[in-house]
């Protein structure tokens, strides 16, 4: 016990020494790294918007060597000409990502075309240069309808933007990916392009969905020049549940054994122990007879 504790603490000490030396060693070759500063907007199903900046140092020579910048202060701004409004700031996580979430009713500064300009700024420190990135996004309204058309289960996507006059303008030539949600990931079921504000296709009929037969459908526009990332989701009870009945029978590998095993074991044990008891009773009788005999001889 004592020795194991000793080796344990020793290993901790050695490990921290190793870490320290590591830190110094790495400090030297920061020039080998190119800073990657990326910025995107994700419009979510609840109409809120995530602004996400990722800040990663990538080794110029070794593609696999990517080090996230941790704890860098990123400020997010809404810009229009000279005017700028701070939307919030956040520190990068251990993955090098800083995020803020803007609610649906957030008001933005917008140019006449309906574009919103976002800017993510890292001010820079003595060691790291400042970074700045700007994106220009049009607010898009994406609808995902799961409807039955002539008893054909159909996925219908409508997308439009609103211009400065408040008119709905249908979206054109925009790639869209439709997938269904699972426990661990989303599975793509259709890839297409929105023309004239809509896209429509027939839903596969053999998807199992979750335990209740509910299928979650996602429509996703990814990394679009005008709209950024946009996600919309909907749900329908269209699943063909394949859940195999998992009745907990008595099997060899369940907790309780097949009934016959209990029966056979009980019969065997009762039989054998009855015999043991029978033997015991007779031994007791022998003892009693012996005692009687003793009493007789004494008398």
């Amino acid at each position, binding site marked *: 016990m004592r020795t194991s504790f000793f080796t344990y603490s020793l290993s901790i000490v050695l*490990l921290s020494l190793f870490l320290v030396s590591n830190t110094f060693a790495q*400090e030297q070759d920061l020039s080998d790294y190119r800073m990657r500063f990326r910025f995107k907007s994700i419009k979510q199903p609840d109409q809120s918007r995530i602004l996400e900046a990722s800040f990663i140092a990538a080794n110029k020579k070794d593609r696999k060597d990517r080090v996230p910048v941790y704890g860098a202060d990123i400020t997010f701004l809404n810009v229009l000409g000279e005017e700028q*409004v*701070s939307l919030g700031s956040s520190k990068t996580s251990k993955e090098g990502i800083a995020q803020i979430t803007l609610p649906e009713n957030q*008001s933005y500064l917008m140019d006449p075309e309906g574009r919103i300009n976002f800017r993510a700024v890292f001010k820079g*420190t003595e060691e790291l240069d400042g970074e700045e990135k700007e994106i220009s996004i049009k607010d898009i309204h994406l609808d995902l309808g799961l409807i039955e058309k002539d008893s054909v289960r159909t996925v219908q996507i409508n997308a439009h933007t609103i211009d400065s006059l408040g008119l709905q303008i249908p979206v054109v030539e925009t790639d869209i990916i439709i997938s269904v949600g699972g426990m661990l990931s989303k599975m793509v079921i259709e890839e297409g392009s929105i023309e004239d504000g809509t896209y429509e296709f027939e839903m596969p009929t053999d998807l199992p969905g979750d335990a209740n037969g509910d299928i979650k459908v996602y429509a996703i526009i990814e990394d679009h020049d005008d709209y950024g990332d946009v996600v919309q989701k909907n749900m329908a009870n269209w699943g063909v549940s394949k859940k195999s009945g998992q009745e907990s029978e008595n099997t060899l590998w369940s*907790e309780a054994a097949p009934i016959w095993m209990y029966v056979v074991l009980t019969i065997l044990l009762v039989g054998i122990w009855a015999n043991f008891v029978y033997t015991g009773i007779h031994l007791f009788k022998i003892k009693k007879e012996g005692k009687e005999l003793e009493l007789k001889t004494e008398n």
Partner: protein
Amino acid sequence: MEKGNTKKGSTNRRKFLKIGLLSGATTVAGATLLANLASEEELQASGEKIRVLTPDGKMVEVDAESINNYPEAHITPAESRKGIPDRKFVMVIDLAKCKNARNCVESCQKAHNLDYNEEFMKIQLIQDHEEAEPYWFPKPCYHCDEPPCVTVCPTGATFKRDDGIVLIDNDRCIGCKFCITSCPYSARQFNWSHKPKFDDTSQPYSPETSVPGTEGTVMKCDFCPDMLRQGKLPYCASSCPMGVIYFGDKNEDMVTNGEETVRFSELINDRGGYRHLEHLGTKPNVYYLPAVNRQFPLERGFDVDEEIIERYKDVPFVQDLKDQGKI
């Protein structure tokens, strides 16, 4: 000391910074301040590390966030017997893509705090017959539907859950080793002696994490239910650079290797999925896609350390390669 520290870590993880700006934007931040870093590092020296760059230009190593951590709930041995409701987990291993990169083995070892030679996931080199070229064969526990190991356990220390996972409760295991002899796939291992790592009480024992181990008990691949509960893939599947390992819920009919998600039934039917040693009737939940149209030549797999190559010396094909001087 350790315990207090864990507590601090978990509150940090859940800390939300609310900054009211303009019309009340909410900022969600990974808010562990750098000032805390140094002390945290020293205390959790045994934990998993990732390398990050700080704004003042220093590369430091900090604790990774999700190595067997239980931010929300600890699953006790009793709870872990039930399984995740309405799930039936399956794994599909695409042998055509495996090149013995061993990331699955190593990430699993890190996550389960295993030693160099302790492998829940083993990569074997299998040669089906003399004419066939051998192929790399990653072998986890098969989590059989009719598991012989569970049948023979005298105390119910190993059990089959409703979600298909076979786990071991090493608080219950008496170490009779009968399950090891009855597993036809050699999936189980024994803790032959006490190791300092077993004393690590920084997280409570759960059969779902298999950590910390206990002397004199059996251990094996657990399909990482702790990760599944967080909606994440098991370590082996998420770490494979080739996307060899697909994992998912059979009830949903979806499996994913982290990059692509496909229908389980289509994958099995279109690509000739099979289960190893089907004739034994154990009904495994791990399926293999045959090693056809391979993406890598076999020799690529010998780009690992000497001791691991040594393992495969008895495979006839490897002897031929050695004679030809190819490896």
